[in-house]
């Protein structure tokens, strides 16, 4: 079956620490993958998307980066977290005309 996994579910990190969030998809090949951030009252902001291995498009310049080391793996990273990086991060997979399927999200709190 086709599924998307995202972890960890919650994360509390100190300012200046690194970050790595992972998203993997099962049951498909060469998926379009996306990272969104959701801040309270601000909807979903597209951070990065990828149409294939090593292909990353950045929508918003900021303190984050993304990588796609394998076909079904999409990683969101930061070298040094800022307080403003706190939020709810969602990975999504484009299933053609079915739109996005979302992961269950990661709640990141930077302290």
């Amino acid at each position, binding site marked *: 079956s086709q599924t998307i996994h995202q972890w960890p579910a919650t994360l509390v990190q100190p300012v200046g620490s690194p970050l790595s969030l992972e998203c993997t998809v099962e049951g498909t090949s060469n998926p379009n993958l996306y990272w969104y951030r959701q801040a309270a009252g601000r909807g979903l902001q597209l951070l990065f998307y990828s149409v294939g291995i090593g292909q990353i498009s950045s929508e918003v310049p900021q303190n984050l980066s993304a990588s796609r080391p394998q076909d079904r793996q999409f990683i969101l990273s930061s070298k040094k977290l800022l307080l403003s990086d706190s939020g709810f991060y969602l990975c999504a997979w484009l299933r053609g005309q079915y739109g996005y399927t979302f992961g269950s999200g990661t*709640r990141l709190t930077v302290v």
Partner: protein
Amino acid sequence: AQSVTQPDIHITVSEGASLELRCNYSYGATPYLFWYVQSPGQGLQLLLKYFSGDTLVQGIKGFEAEFKRSQSSFNLRKPSVHWSDAAEYFCAVGYEVLTFGTGTRLTIIP
């Protein structure tokens, strides 16, 4: 640039009452249109989608939405809400990349 407007930040309705959530968009052509629902702390679940054809689309959980090209709108409706419908609702438009509205929080009162 494309944009999605959900003018109602928060709506409160009584259980059993009808519901309409508004969505207006700005896009170069008629995009694919979606409504998603999000429960607290969870990911987003697809309610329904419009690509072409019949402008009234049916979704899960008894929801429907009507696409009105002349108004660039895609409003979500439900004839009778249930307490379990309390959640946040997002309208989204696009093709390969979706643009989301800021969401409408729905509260249901007994």
